[in-house]
Protein backbone atom coordinates (compact mmCIF):
# COMPACT_ATOMS: atom_id res chain seq x y z
CA UNK A 1 0.00 0.00 0.00
CA UNK A 2 1.34 3.42 -0.95
CA UNK A 3 1.34 5.32 2.31
CA UNK A 4 3.65 8.21 2.82
CA UNK A 5 6.68 7.64 5.00
CA UNK A 6 5.31 10.02 7.63
CA UNK A 7 1.99 8.17 7.75
CA UNK A 8 3.76 4.86 8.19
CA UNK A 9 5.95 6.18 10.96
CA UNK A 10 2.95 7.77 12.66
CA UNK A 11 0.96 4.52 12.52
CA UNK A 12 3.84 2.48 13.91
CA UNK A 13 4.34 5.06 16.65
CA UNK A 14 0.66 4.89 17.57
CA UNK A 15 0.80 1.11 17.69
CA UNK A 16 3.84 1.22 19.96
CA UNK A 17 2.32 3.90 22.18
CA UNK A 18 -0.95 1.99 22.40
CA UNK A 19 0.79 -1.20 23.43
CA UNK A 20 2.80 0.82 25.93
CA UNK A 21 -0.37 2.18 27.52
CA UNK A 22 -1.78 -1.34 27.61
CA UNK A 23 1.20 -2.84 29.38
CA UNK A 24 2.50 -0.11 31.71
CA UNK A 25 -0.30 -0.44 34.30
CA UNK A 26 0.19 -4.21 34.40
CA UNK A 27 3.94 -3.82 34.86
CA UNK A 28 3.35 -1.40 37.71
CA UNK A 29 1.15 -3.96 39.47
CA UNK A 30 3.87 -6.56 39.00
CA UNK A 31 6.53 -4.26 40.38
CA UNK A 32 4.36 -3.14 43.30
CA UNK A 33 3.96 -6.72 44.43
CA UNK A 34 7.61 -6.45 45.48
CA UNK A 35 7.25 -2.94 46.90
CA UNK A 36 8.27 -2.80 50.57
CA UNK A 37 5.97 0.17 51.10
CA UNK A 38 2.43 -0.80 52.16
CA UNK A 39 0.83 2.13 50.37
CA UNK A 40 2.74 1.58 47.10
CA UNK A 41 4.49 4.94 47.23
CA UNK A 42 5.99 5.54 43.81
CA UNK A 43 8.83 4.94 43.07
CA UNK A 44 9.29 1.89 45.34
CA UNK A 45 11.66 2.49 48.22
CA UNK A 46 12.79 -1.15 48.32
CA UNK A 47 11.98 -4.64 47.13
CA UNK A 48 10.76 -7.65 49.12
CA UNK A 49 9.11 -11.04 48.56
CA UNK A 50 7.32 -10.82 51.92
CA UNK A 51 3.90 -10.15 50.33
CA UNK A 52 4.18 -13.14 48.03
CA UNK A 53 4.75 -15.33 51.07
CA UNK A 54 1.80 -13.76 52.84
CA UNK A 55 -0.46 -14.33 49.83
CA UNK A 56 0.72 -17.92 49.41
CA UNK A 57 -0.14 -18.65 53.05
CA UNK A 58 -3.48 -16.88 52.98
CA UNK A 59 -6.33 -19.37 53.35
CA UNK A 60 -8.77 -16.76 52.05
CA UNK A 61 -6.89 -16.60 48.77
CA UNK A 62 -6.58 -20.38 48.48
CA UNK A 63 -10.27 -21.02 49.18
CA UNK A 64 -11.31 -18.34 46.73
CA UNK A 65 -9.01 -19.78 44.06
CA UNK A 66 -10.48 -23.26 44.51
CA UNK A 67 -14.04 -21.89 44.35
CA UNK A 68 -13.19 -20.05 41.14
CA UNK A 69 -11.72 -23.18 39.58
CA UNK A 70 -14.83 -25.20 40.44
CA UNK A 71 -17.16 -22.52 39.10
CA UNK A 72 -15.10 -22.15 35.93
CA UNK A 73 -14.94 -25.90 35.31
CA UNK A 74 -18.67 -26.37 35.85
CA UNK A 75 -19.63 -23.45 33.64
CA UNK A 76 -17.20 -24.55 30.93
CA UNK A 77 -18.60 -28.07 30.73
CA UNK A 78 -22.18 -26.79 30.41
CA UNK A 79 -21.13 -24.13 27.90
CA UNK A 80 -19.31 -26.75 25.79
CA UNK A 81 -22.40 -28.92 25.55
CA UNK A 82 -24.92 -26.14 24.94
CA UNK A 83 -22.67 -24.07 22.68
CA UNK A 84 -21.84 -27.03 20.45
CA UNK A 85 -25.52 -27.98 20.15
CA UNK A 86 -26.60 -24.49 19.12
CA UNK A 87 -23.68 -24.11 16.71
CA UNK A 88 -24.64 -27.36 14.93
CA UNK A 89 -28.29 -26.37 14.78
CA UNK A 90 -27.48 -22.93 13.36
CA UNK A 91 -24.83 -24.01 10.88
CA UNK A 92 -26.34 -27.26 9.58
CA UNK A 93 -30.06 -26.54 9.48
CA UNK A 94 -32.50 -23.96 8.24
CA UNK A 95 -35.42 -23.25 10.48
CA UNK A 96 -37.85 -20.58 11.47
CA UNK A 97 -36.43 -18.24 14.08
CA UNK A 98 -32.81 -19.00 13.26
CA UNK A 99 -31.80 -15.36 13.59
CA UNK A 100 -33.61 -15.10 16.90
CA UNK A 101 -31.70 -18.10 18.25
CA UNK A 102 -28.31 -16.73 17.22
CA UNK A 103 -29.22 -13.41 18.82
CA UNK A 104 -30.38 -15.20 21.96
CA UNK A 105 -26.99 -16.86 22.39
CA UNK A 106 -25.35 -13.45 22.15
CA UNK A 107 -27.79 -11.73 24.50
CA UNK A 108 -26.17 -12.65 27.84
CA UNK A 109 -22.92 -10.90 26.92
CA UNK A 110 -24.55 -8.16 24.87
CA UNK A 111 -26.71 -7.08 27.79
CA UNK A 112 -25.02 -5.34 30.71
CA UNK A 113 -23.83 -7.86 33.28
CA UNK A 114 -25.84 -6.31 36.05
CA UNK A 115 -29.07 -7.00 34.16
CA UNK A 116 -28.26 -10.68 33.76
CA UNK A 117 -27.13 -10.67 37.38
CA UNK A 118 -30.29 -9.31 38.96
CA UNK A 119 -32.58 -11.21 36.57
CA UNK A 120 -30.96 -14.51 37.58
CA UNK A 121 -30.86 -13.50 41.25
CA UNK A 122 -34.56 -12.73 41.15
CA UNK A 123 -35.40 -15.96 39.29
CA UNK A 124 -33.23 -18.18 41.51
CA UNK A 125 -34.81 -16.83 44.65
CA UNK A 126 -38.31 -17.24 43.25
CA UNK A 127 -37.69 -20.79 41.97
CA UNK A 128 -35.37 -22.16 44.66
CA UNK A 129 -36.64 -20.70 47.92
CA UNK A 130 -39.89 -22.73 47.93
CA UNK A 131 -37.65 -25.82 48.03
CA UNK A 132 -35.58 -24.40 50.87
CA UNK A 133 -32.54 -24.14 48.58
CA UNK A 134 -30.50 -20.95 48.85
CA UNK A 135 -27.96 -19.45 46.48
CA UNK A 136 -24.65 -21.24 46.37
CA UNK A 137 -21.88 -22.38 44.08
CA UNK A 138 -24.46 -24.13 41.91
CA UNK A 139 -26.20 -20.86 41.06
CA UNK A 140 -22.85 -19.24 40.20
CA UNK A 141 -22.18 -22.05 37.74
CA UNK A 142 -25.60 -21.64 36.13
CA UNK A 143 -25.08 -17.89 35.84
CA UNK A 144 -21.61 -18.23 34.35
CA UNK A 145 -22.64 -20.97 31.91
CA UNK A 146 -25.34 -18.67 30.54
CA UNK A 147 -22.87 -16.10 29.25
CA UNK A 148 -20.11 -18.62 28.44
CA UNK A 149 -22.19 -20.46 25.81
CA UNK A 150 -21.43 -17.78 23.24
CA UNK A 151 -17.64 -18.33 23.30
CA UNK A 152 -17.98 -22.04 22.51
CA UNK A 153 -20.75 -21.31 20.02
CA UNK A 154 -18.58 -18.81 18.11
CA UNK A 155 -15.57 -21.12 17.94
CA UNK A 156 -17.54 -24.18 16.89
CA UNK A 157 -19.60 -22.20 14.38
CA UNK A 158 -16.47 -20.82 12.74
CA UNK A 159 -15.01 -24.31 12.53
CA UNK A 160 -18.20 -25.82 11.07
CA UNK A 161 -18.32 -23.08 8.45
CA UNK A 162 -14.77 -23.86 7.41
CA UNK A 163 -14.93 -27.64 7.35
CA UNK A 164 -18.21 -28.12 5.47
CA UNK A 165 -20.01 -31.46 5.37
CA UNK A 166 -18.18 -33.35 2.62
CA UNK A 167 -16.08 -35.42 5.03
CA UNK A 168 -19.15 -36.42 6.98
CA UNK A 169 -20.94 -37.37 3.79
CA UNK A 170 -17.96 -39.44 2.74
CA UNK A 171 -18.03 -41.17 6.12
CA UNK A 172 -21.74 -41.92 5.71
CA UNK A 173 -21.16 -43.22 2.18
CA UNK A 174 -18.55 -45.57 3.55
CA UNK A 175 -21.14 -47.05 5.88
CA UNK A 176 -20.54 -45.27 9.17
CA UNK A 177 -23.71 -44.44 11.03
CA UNK A 178 -24.48 -41.06 12.59
CA UNK A 179 -22.76 -41.84 15.88
CA UNK A 180 -19.65 -43.40 14.36
CA UNK A 181 -19.32 -40.44 11.99
CA UNK A 182 -19.58 -38.05 14.91
CA UNK A 183 -16.99 -39.98 16.91
CA UNK A 184 -14.47 -40.54 14.12
CA UNK A 185 -14.97 -37.57 11.81
CA UNK A 186 -16.95 -34.68 13.24
CA UNK A 187 -15.56 -34.64 16.75
CA UNK A 188 -11.87 -34.80 15.77
CA UNK A 189 -12.47 -31.89 13.39
CA UNK A 190 -14.11 -29.95 16.20
CA UNK A 191 -11.58 -30.76 18.87
CA UNK A 192 -9.30 -27.74 18.75
CA UNK A 193 -12.28 -25.40 18.35
CA UNK A 194 -13.83 -26.94 21.45
CA UNK A 195 -10.60 -26.52 23.37
CA UNK A 196 -10.26 -22.90 22.30
CA UNK A 197 -13.91 -22.16 23.10
CA UNK A 198 -13.69 -23.98 26.40
CA UNK A 199 -10.54 -22.10 27.34
CA UNK A 200 -12.24 -18.79 26.63
CA UNK A 201 -15.31 -19.86 28.57
CA UNK A 202 -13.18 -20.79 31.56
CA UNK A 203 -11.27 -17.51 31.45
CA UNK A 204 -14.50 -15.54 31.14
CA UNK A 205 -15.96 -17.33 34.14
CA UNK A 206 -12.73 -17.08 36.15
CA UNK A 207 -12.70 -13.31 35.73
CA UNK A 208 -16.41 -12.57 36.14
CA UNK A 209 -17.55 -10.49 39.08
CA UNK A 210 -20.88 -8.80 38.35
CA UNK A 211 -23.07 -11.85 37.67
CA UNK A 212 -21.13 -13.64 40.42
CA UNK A 213 -22.01 -10.93 42.94
CA UNK A 214 -25.70 -11.59 42.40
CA UNK A 215 -25.67 -15.36 42.06
CA UNK A 216 -23.20 -16.39 44.78
CA UNK A 217 -24.67 -17.55 48.06
CA UNK A 218 -23.34 -16.54 51.44
CA UNK A 219 -19.89 -18.01 51.96
CA UNK A 220 -19.26 -18.64 48.25
CA UNK A 221 -16.33 -16.42 47.38
CA UNK A 222 -14.67 -16.60 43.99
CA UNK A 223 -11.29 -14.99 43.48
CA UNK A 224 -12.70 -11.79 41.92
CA UNK A 225 -15.15 -11.48 44.83
CA UNK A 226 -12.27 -11.92 47.26
CA UNK A 227 -10.20 -9.26 45.50
CA UNK A 228 -13.09 -6.82 45.41
CA UNK A 229 -13.87 -7.41 49.09
CA UNK A 230 -10.27 -6.73 50.10
CA UNK A 231 -9.56 -3.95 47.62
CA UNK A 232 -10.60 -1.20 49.96
CA UNK A 233 -8.89 -2.58 53.06
CA UNK A 234 -5.55 -0.77 53.38
CA UNK A 235 -3.91 -3.51 55.46
CA UNK A 236 -4.76 -6.13 52.80
CA UNK A 237 -3.44 -3.99 49.92
CA UNK A 238 -0.07 -5.78 49.51
CA UNK A 239 -1.69 -9.24 49.39
CA UNK A 240 -4.35 -8.04 46.93
CA UNK A 241 -1.56 -6.65 44.80
CA UNK A 242 0.30 -9.98 44.84
CA UNK A 243 -2.87 -11.83 43.78
CA UNK A 244 -3.29 -9.28 40.99
CA UNK A 245 0.33 -9.79 39.89
CA UNK A 246 -0.08 -13.57 39.99
CA UNK A 247 -3.20 -13.33 37.84
CA UNK A 248 -1.33 -11.23 35.28
CA UNK A 249 1.40 -13.88 35.09
CA UNK A 250 -1.24 -16.63 34.89
CA UNK A 251 -3.00 -14.92 31.99
CA UNK A 252 -0.07 -15.86 29.75
CA UNK A 253 -0.91 -19.57 30.12
CA UNK A 254 -4.21 -19.61 28.18
CA UNK A 255 -2.67 -17.44 25.48
CA UNK A 256 0.16 -19.91 25.09
CA UNK A 257 -2.25 -22.85 25.03
CA UNK A 258 -4.59 -21.18 22.57
CA UNK A 259 -1.68 -20.49 20.24
CA UNK A 260 -0.50 -24.07 20.46
CA UNK A 261 -3.97 -25.49 19.96
CA UNK A 262 -5.39 -23.56 17.11
CA UNK A 263 -2.54 -21.96 15.25
CA UNK A 264 -3.54 -18.49 16.30
CA UNK A 265 -7.21 -18.26 15.37
CA UNK A 266 -8.40 -18.60 18.95
CA UNK A 267 -9.25 -15.78 21.20
CA UNK A 268 -11.04 -13.39 18.93
CA UNK A 269 -14.51 -13.64 20.29
Amino acid at each position, binding site marked *: *MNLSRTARTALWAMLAA*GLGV*VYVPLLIVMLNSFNTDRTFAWPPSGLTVRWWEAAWNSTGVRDALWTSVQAGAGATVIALVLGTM*VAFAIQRYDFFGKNAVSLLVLLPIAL*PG*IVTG*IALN*NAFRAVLSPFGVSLGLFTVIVGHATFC*VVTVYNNVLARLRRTGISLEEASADLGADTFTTFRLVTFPMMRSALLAGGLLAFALSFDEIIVTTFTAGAGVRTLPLWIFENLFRPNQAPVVNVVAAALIVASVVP*IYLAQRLSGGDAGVR
Partner: protein
Amino acid sequence: MNTAAPARPAPLRTPRRRLAAFLHRHAGVRLSLLLSAPALWLGLAYLGALAALFVTAFWSTDTFTGDLVRVPTWGNFQDLLTADVYRTIALRSVGVAVAVTLIDLLIAFPMAFAMAKLASPRAQRWLVIAVLTPLWASYLVKAYAWRVMLGSEGLLGWGYGLTATVLTLSYLWLPYMILPIYAGLERLPDSLLEAAGDLGARGWRTFRTVVWPLALPAVIAGSVFTFSLSLGDYITVKIVGGTSQLIGNVVYDNIGAANNLPFAAAVATVPVMIMLVYLAAVRRTGALENL
Protein backbone atom coordinates in the same frame (compact mmCIF):
# COMPACT_ATOMS: atom_id res chain seq x y z
CA MET B 1 -2.10 -48.78 4.47
CA ASN B 2 -3.93 -51.95 5.18
CA THR B 3 -3.95 -53.67 1.80
CA ALA B 4 -6.08 -56.65 2.78
CA ALA B 5 -9.07 -54.59 3.82
CA PRO B 6 -11.88 -56.78 5.10
CA ALA B 7 -15.19 -56.62 3.31
CA ARG B 8 -17.59 -54.12 4.80
CA PRO B 9 -19.83 -55.94 7.29
CA ALA B 10 -23.52 -55.95 6.57
CA PRO B 11 -25.39 -53.32 8.59
CA LEU B 12 -26.43 -54.78 11.92
CA ARG B 13 -29.94 -54.21 13.11
CA THR B 14 -28.88 -53.23 16.62
CA PRO B 15 -30.95 -50.60 18.47
CA ARG B 16 -28.06 -48.18 18.17
CA ARG B 17 -27.90 -48.69 14.45
CA ARG B 18 -31.65 -48.27 14.12
CA LEU B 19 -31.56 -45.04 16.16
CA ALA B 20 -28.73 -43.76 13.99
CA ALA B 21 -30.68 -44.58 10.85
CA PHE B 22 -33.78 -42.92 12.27
CA LEU B 23 -31.83 -39.77 13.10
CA HIS B 24 -30.19 -39.82 9.70
CA ARG B 25 -33.55 -39.88 7.97
CA HIS B 26 -35.31 -37.30 10.13
CA ALA B 27 -33.54 -33.95 10.02
CA GLY B 28 -36.36 -32.37 12.00
CA VAL B 29 -35.81 -34.72 14.93
CA ARG B 30 -32.07 -34.07 14.84
CA LEU B 31 -32.67 -30.34 14.86
CA SER B 32 -35.19 -30.56 17.71
CA LEU B 33 -32.76 -32.58 19.80
CA LEU B 34 -29.94 -30.12 19.10
CA LEU B 35 -32.09 -27.17 20.04
CA SER B 36 -33.80 -28.75 23.04
CA ALA B 37 -31.30 -28.12 25.83
CA PRO B 38 -30.13 -24.68 24.63
CA ALA B 39 -33.74 -23.62 24.13
CA LEU B 40 -34.65 -24.71 27.63
CA TRP B 41 -31.64 -22.98 29.16
CA LEU B 42 -31.45 -19.76 27.19
CA GLY B 43 -34.98 -19.51 25.87
CA LEU B 44 -36.97 -20.62 28.87
CA ALA B 45 -34.74 -20.02 31.89
CA TYR B 46 -32.76 -16.96 30.81
CA LEU B 47 -35.43 -15.16 28.80
CA GLY B 48 -37.93 -16.16 31.47
CA ALA B 49 -35.75 -14.57 34.13
CA LEU B 50 -35.43 -11.40 32.05
CA ALA B 51 -39.18 -11.31 31.50
CA ALA B 52 -39.86 -11.83 35.19
CA LEU B 53 -37.48 -8.97 35.98
CA PHE B 54 -39.34 -6.78 33.54
CA VAL B 55 -42.64 -7.62 35.21
CA THR B 56 -41.14 -6.84 38.61
CA ALA B 57 -40.33 -3.36 37.36
CA PHE B 58 -44.06 -2.66 37.43
CA TRP B 59 -44.45 -3.72 41.06
CA SER B 60 -43.51 -1.82 44.16
CA THR B 61 -42.30 -2.47 47.69
CA ASP B 62 -44.12 -1.80 50.92
CA THR B 63 -42.37 1.15 52.56
CA PHE B 64 -42.58 -0.34 56.07
CA THR B 65 -42.13 -4.07 55.63
CA GLY B 66 -40.03 -4.02 52.47
CA ASP B 67 -42.19 -6.79 51.00
CA LEU B 68 -43.07 -6.88 47.32
CA VAL B 69 -46.46 -5.45 46.43
CA ARG B 70 -47.61 -7.31 43.34
CA VAL B 71 -49.91 -4.63 41.99
CA PRO B 72 -49.04 -3.18 38.56
CA THR B 73 -47.98 0.45 38.72
CA TRP B 74 -46.11 2.93 36.57
CA GLY B 75 -44.68 4.47 39.73
CA ASN B 76 -41.10 3.27 39.26
CA PHE B 77 -40.90 4.57 35.72
CA GLN B 78 -42.53 7.85 36.74
CA ASP B 79 -39.90 8.30 39.46
CA LEU B 80 -37.23 7.42 36.94
CA LEU B 81 -38.43 9.97 34.39
CA THR B 82 -39.33 12.81 36.71
CA ALA B 83 -36.49 12.78 39.23
CA ASP B 84 -33.64 14.95 37.99
CA VAL B 85 -31.03 12.83 39.69
CA TYR B 86 -31.87 9.75 37.61
CA ARG B 87 -32.03 11.68 34.37
CA THR B 88 -28.61 13.12 35.16
CA ILE B 89 -27.21 9.69 35.95
CA ALA B 90 -28.74 8.11 32.81
CA LEU B 91 -27.34 10.85 30.60
CA ARG B 92 -23.98 10.65 32.34
CA SER B 93 -23.87 6.88 31.77
CA VAL B 94 -24.65 7.23 28.08
CA GLY B 95 -22.09 10.03 27.88
CA VAL B 96 -19.45 7.83 29.51
CA ALA B 97 -20.29 4.93 27.18
CA VAL B 98 -20.05 7.20 24.10
CA ALA B 99 -16.81 8.78 25.32
CA VAL B 100 -15.23 5.40 26.04
CA THR B 101 -16.31 4.09 22.63
CA LEU B 102 -14.87 7.11 20.81
CA ILE B 103 -11.61 7.08 22.75
CA ASP B 104 -11.18 3.37 22.11
CA LEU B 105 -12.00 3.84 18.43
CA LEU B 106 -9.42 6.61 18.07
CA ILE B 107 -6.72 4.53 19.74
CA ALA B 108 -7.72 1.17 18.31
CA PHE B 109 -8.12 2.04 14.64
CA PRO B 110 -4.53 3.14 13.94
CA MET B 111 -3.23 0.26 16.05
CA ALA B 112 -5.38 -2.28 14.21
CA PHE B 113 -4.46 -0.74 10.86
CA ALA B 114 -0.74 -0.92 11.58
CA MET B 115 -1.17 -4.52 12.73
CA ALA B 116 -3.23 -5.61 9.73
CA LYS B 117 -1.64 -3.69 6.88
CA LEU B 118 1.89 -2.67 7.85
CA ALA B 119 3.20 -5.55 9.93
CA SER B 120 4.71 -8.65 8.37
CA PRO B 121 2.72 -11.88 8.85
CA ARG B 122 5.18 -13.00 11.51
CA ALA B 123 4.99 -9.72 13.40
CA GLN B 124 1.22 -9.83 13.01
CA ARG B 125 1.03 -13.06 14.93
CA TRP B 126 3.02 -11.61 17.80
CA LEU B 127 1.08 -8.36 17.81
CA VAL B 128 -2.21 -10.25 18.07
CA ILE B 129 -0.80 -12.10 21.07
CA ALA B 130 0.38 -8.81 22.56
CA VAL B 131 -3.13 -7.39 22.28
CA LEU B 132 -4.83 -10.59 23.44
CA THR B 133 -2.74 -11.20 26.53
CA PRO B 134 -4.10 -8.27 28.59
CA LEU B 135 -7.59 -9.43 27.67
CA TRP B 136 -6.96 -12.53 29.72
CA ALA B 137 -5.69 -10.55 32.68
CA SER B 138 -8.42 -10.05 35.21
CA TYR B 139 -10.83 -7.15 34.85
CA LEU B 140 -10.43 -6.33 38.52
CA VAL B 141 -6.67 -6.41 38.28
CA LYS B 142 -6.69 -3.84 35.50
CA ALA B 143 -9.15 -1.55 37.27
CA TYR B 144 -7.04 -2.00 40.36
CA ALA B 145 -3.88 -1.06 38.45
CA TRP B 146 -5.49 2.25 37.52
CA ARG B 147 -6.60 2.79 41.10
CA VAL B 148 -2.99 2.46 42.16
CA MET B 149 -1.70 4.71 39.37
CA LEU B 150 -4.35 7.39 39.83
CA GLY B 151 -4.13 7.32 43.63
CA SER B 152 -2.51 10.25 45.37
CA GLU B 153 0.82 8.43 45.75
CA GLY B 154 0.68 6.67 42.40
CA LEU B 155 2.57 7.21 39.16
CA LEU B 156 -0.06 9.59 37.73
CA GLY B 157 -1.71 10.74 40.95
CA TRP B 158 -4.64 12.44 39.19
CA GLY B 159 -7.18 11.32 41.75
CA TYR B 160 -10.54 9.58 41.31
CA GLY B 161 -13.72 10.77 39.62
CA LEU B 162 -15.59 10.76 36.33
CA THR B 163 -12.44 11.30 34.24
CA ALA B 164 -10.80 8.40 36.04
CA THR B 165 -13.84 6.23 35.24
CA VAL B 166 -13.70 7.10 31.54
CA LEU B 167 -9.94 6.48 31.40
CA THR B 168 -10.15 3.17 33.20
CA LEU B 169 -13.11 1.92 31.16
CA SER B 170 -11.35 2.94 27.93
CA TYR B 171 -8.32 1.00 29.06
CA LEU B 172 -10.38 -2.04 30.06
CA TRP B 173 -12.31 -2.34 26.80
CA LEU B 174 -9.56 -1.31 24.35
CA PRO B 175 -8.72 -4.88 23.22
CA TYR B 176 -12.43 -5.48 22.51
CA MET B 177 -12.22 -2.65 19.99
CA ILE B 178 -8.82 -3.53 18.51
CA LEU B 179 -9.55 -7.19 17.77
CA PRO B 180 -12.73 -6.86 15.67
CA ILE B 181 -11.24 -3.94 13.71
CA TYR B 182 -8.03 -5.88 13.15
CA ALA B 183 -10.01 -8.89 11.95
CA GLY B 184 -12.05 -6.65 9.65
CA LEU B 185 -9.02 -4.88 8.18
CA GLU B 186 -7.15 -8.13 7.72
CA ARG B 187 -10.01 -9.43 5.55
CA LEU B 188 -9.83 -6.25 3.47
CA PRO B 189 -7.80 -7.17 0.37
CA ASP B 190 -4.61 -5.16 -0.14
CA SER B 191 -5.45 -4.98 -3.84
CA LEU B 192 -8.34 -2.61 -3.09
CA LEU B 193 -5.98 -0.20 -1.39
CA GLU B 194 -3.53 -0.48 -4.27
CA ALA B 195 -6.33 0.08 -6.76
CA ALA B 196 -7.35 3.22 -4.92
CA GLY B 197 -3.75 4.39 -5.02
CA ASP B 198 -3.43 3.60 -8.74
CA LEU B 199 -6.54 5.62 -9.42
CA GLY B 200 -4.86 8.59 -7.78
CA ALA B 201 -6.26 8.53 -4.26
CA ARG B 202 -3.88 9.61 -1.54
CA GLY B 203 -3.78 8.14 1.93
CA TRP B 204 -6.59 10.18 3.43
CA ARG B 205 -8.94 9.73 0.47
CA THR B 206 -8.27 5.99 0.37
CA PHE B 207 -9.09 5.83 4.03
CA ARG B 208 -12.31 7.81 3.68
CA THR B 209 -13.70 6.13 0.57
CA VAL B 210 -12.33 2.58 0.77
CA VAL B 211 -10.99 1.55 4.17
CA TRP B 212 -13.54 3.19 6.45
CA PRO B 213 -16.73 2.03 4.66
CA LEU B 214 -15.45 -1.54 4.47
CA ALA B 215 -14.21 -1.54 8.06
CA LEU B 216 -17.40 -0.02 9.42
CA PRO B 217 -19.12 -3.32 10.34
CA ALA B 218 -16.03 -4.31 12.33
CA VAL B 219 -15.94 -0.91 14.02
CA ILE B 220 -19.59 -1.29 14.96
CA ALA B 221 -18.95 -4.78 16.27
CA GLY B 222 -16.24 -3.37 18.51
CA SER B 223 -18.48 -0.52 19.60
CA VAL B 224 -21.17 -2.98 20.69
CA PHE B 225 -18.68 -4.34 23.20
CA THR B 226 -17.28 -1.03 24.44
CA PHE B 227 -20.71 0.60 24.61
CA SER B 228 -22.51 -2.27 26.32
CA LEU B 229 -19.70 -3.03 28.74
CA SER B 230 -19.42 0.62 29.77
CA LEU B 231 -23.16 1.09 30.11
CA GLY B 232 -23.62 -1.67 32.65
CA ASP B 233 -20.49 -1.13 34.69
CA TYR B 234 -20.61 -0.26 38.34
CA ILE B 235 -17.44 -1.94 39.63
CA THR B 236 -14.99 0.44 37.98
CA VAL B 237 -17.01 3.35 39.31
CA LYS B 238 -16.68 1.92 42.79
CA ILE B 239 -12.94 1.46 42.32
CA VAL B 240 -11.92 4.75 40.66
CA GLY B 241 -15.13 6.75 40.16
CA GLY B 242 -15.34 8.62 43.42
CA THR B 243 -18.83 10.02 43.90
CA SER B 244 -20.08 10.24 40.30
CA GLN B 245 -22.44 7.31 39.94
CA LEU B 246 -23.61 5.54 36.79
CA ILE B 247 -26.80 3.58 36.04
CA GLY B 248 -25.20 0.38 37.28
CA ASN B 249 -24.60 1.88 40.72
CA VAL B 250 -28.23 2.94 41.04
CA VAL B 251 -29.32 -0.62 40.21
CA TYR B 252 -26.79 -2.10 42.61
CA ASP B 253 -27.68 0.22 45.48
CA ASN B 254 -31.39 -0.48 45.07
CA ILE B 255 -30.80 -4.22 45.22
CA GLY B 256 -28.50 -4.09 48.20
CA ALA B 257 -28.87 -1.20 50.60
CA ALA B 258 -32.34 0.02 49.61
CA ASN B 259 -33.76 -3.49 49.04
CA ASN B 260 -36.04 -2.13 46.32
CA LEU B 261 -35.93 -4.77 43.59
CA PRO B 262 -38.83 -3.29 41.57
CA PHE B 263 -37.09 0.06 41.25
CA ALA B 264 -33.76 -1.63 40.48
CA ALA B 265 -35.53 -3.61 37.76
CA ALA B 266 -37.04 -0.43 36.34
CA VAL B 267 -33.63 1.26 36.28
CA ALA B 268 -32.09 -1.84 34.68
CA THR B 269 -34.51 -1.62 31.77
CA VAL B 270 -32.84 1.65 30.76
CA PRO B 271 -29.51 0.15 29.61
CA VAL B 272 -31.38 -2.82 28.12
CA MET B 273 -33.59 -0.54 26.03
CA ILE B 274 -30.58 1.49 24.93
CA MET B 275 -28.69 -1.69 23.97
CA LEU B 276 -31.69 -3.20 22.13
CA VAL B 277 -32.14 0.00 20.13
CA TYR B 278 -28.42 0.00 19.39
CA LEU B 279 -28.34 -3.67 18.36
CA ALA B 280 -31.45 -3.26 16.19
CA ALA B 281 -29.89 -0.21 14.54
CA VAL B 282 -26.61 -1.94 13.73
CA ARG B 283 -28.09 -5.30 12.69
CA ARG B 284 -28.54 -4.14 9.11
CA THR B 285 -24.84 -3.36 8.74
CA GLY B 286 -24.01 -7.02 9.27
CA ALA B 287 -21.88 -6.03 12.22
CA LEU B 288 -23.30 -8.75 14.44
CA GLU B 289 -21.73 -11.40 12.21
CA ASN B 290 -18.39 -9.98 13.29
CA LEU B 291 -18.82 -10.43 17.03
